C-alpha cells in the first residue's frame, strides 16, 4: 500500500494531519517522506509506516526525487487542488531551500564531534564535579575540629590573613580619626 509516489497523511507528531509523499522505502517498516516543505510544511525525513495513513492518490516519481521535481509534477497533474493547498510562491520555495541547506550543513558538522568526544569526556567531568562537592562538604565539617587536614588548611588560611592585614590598617585610622571628632 505504501510505496514510492503514494501520498499519505501523517498521524503522529507535530506534523500530524498534514499531507506528504513517500520518496523512498528504507528498511522494513520505514520510509523517507517529504511534504515538500514549501507545500505542506512536512520536512524530508525518515518516518515509521505506522505513523502514516495512505490516501488513494499515487504519483509517478523517481526513487529519491528532489522537492523541486515533486513540485513540478504536482503542478502538471493538478495535485494542489486535491490537497486543498495552492502552489507555493517563489519566496516560500527559497525559504524552504534555505532551511534544507541549513539542516544539511548542521547534520554534517556537529554530529562527528559529539559522537567522538563528549561521551568519553562528559561522564568523568560530572563524576569529578560530584566528587569535589562531596569533598567540600567534609572540609567544612573538618574545619571545626581544625586539626585533621593540615596541608589543605594552611594554604587557604594564609590568603585571608593577607586580606585581613590589608583591611585592618585602613579601618584603624578611620576609627582614630572619628574618635577625636566625638570627643
Amino acid at each position: 500500500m505504501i510505496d514510492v509516489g503514494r501520498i499519505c497523511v501523517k498521524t503522529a507528531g507535530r506534523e500530524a494531519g498534514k499531507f506528504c509523499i513517500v520518496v523512498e522505502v528504507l528498511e522494513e517498516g520505514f520510509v523517507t517522506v517529504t511534504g515538500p516543505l514549501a507545500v505542506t510544511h512536512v520536512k524530508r525525513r525518515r518516518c515509521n509506516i505506522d505513523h502514516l495513513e495512505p490516501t488513494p492518490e499515487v504519483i509517478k516519481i523517481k526513487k529519491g526525487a528532489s522537492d523541486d521535481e515533486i513540485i513540478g509534477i504536482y503542478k502538471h497533474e493538478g495535485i494542489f487542488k486535491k490537497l486543498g493547498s495552492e502552489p507555493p510562491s517563489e519566496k516560500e520555495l527559497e525559504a524552504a531551500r534555505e532551511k534544507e541547506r541549513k539542516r544539511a550543513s548542521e547534520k554534517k558538522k556537529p554530529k562527528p564531534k559529539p559522537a567522538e568526544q563528549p561521551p568519553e569526556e562528559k561522564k568523568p567531568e560530572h563524576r569529578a564535579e560530584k566528587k569535589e562537592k562531596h569533598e567540600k562538604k567534609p572540609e567544612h565539617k573538618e574545619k571545626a575540629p581544625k586539626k585533621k587536614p593540615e596541608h589543605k588548611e594552611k594554604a587557604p588560611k594564609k590568603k585571608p590573613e593577607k586580606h585581613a592585614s590589608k583591611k585592618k590598617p585602613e579601618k584603624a585610622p578611620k576609627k582614630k580619626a572619628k574618635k577625636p571628632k566625638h570627643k
Partner: protein
Amino acid sequence: MMPRPAQRSRSFRKKPVNTPGGRQTIHYLKKGPCIARCAVCKRPLHGVPSGLPSEMRKLKKTSKRPDRPYGGNMCSACSRETVKSKNIARWEND
C-alpha cells in the same frame, strides 16, 4: 497550633511539614485545578501540567502542552484516530 479562623475551611489543601526543630506543623495551601483529561476518552493527559494560574504563567508554552494538533486537548491515540477518520471522510466525498 490552632489554625487562623480564615484557614478553618476545607477549601485549603493541608500539607504536613516537619520543621527543623522536629515539630510537625500544617501548611495551608490553595487547592489547584484538576488534572487535564482527554476530551474523548477522559484519560489523564501526559505532558500537561496542572497548577495555579500564577504557577502556569511562569511556564513556557512548549512545556504546557504537546506540540501536536489537538495537543493538550486529546490524548495521542484519540488525536491519531480523528486524523485517520478525517482523512477517510475527505476522500469519500470526492
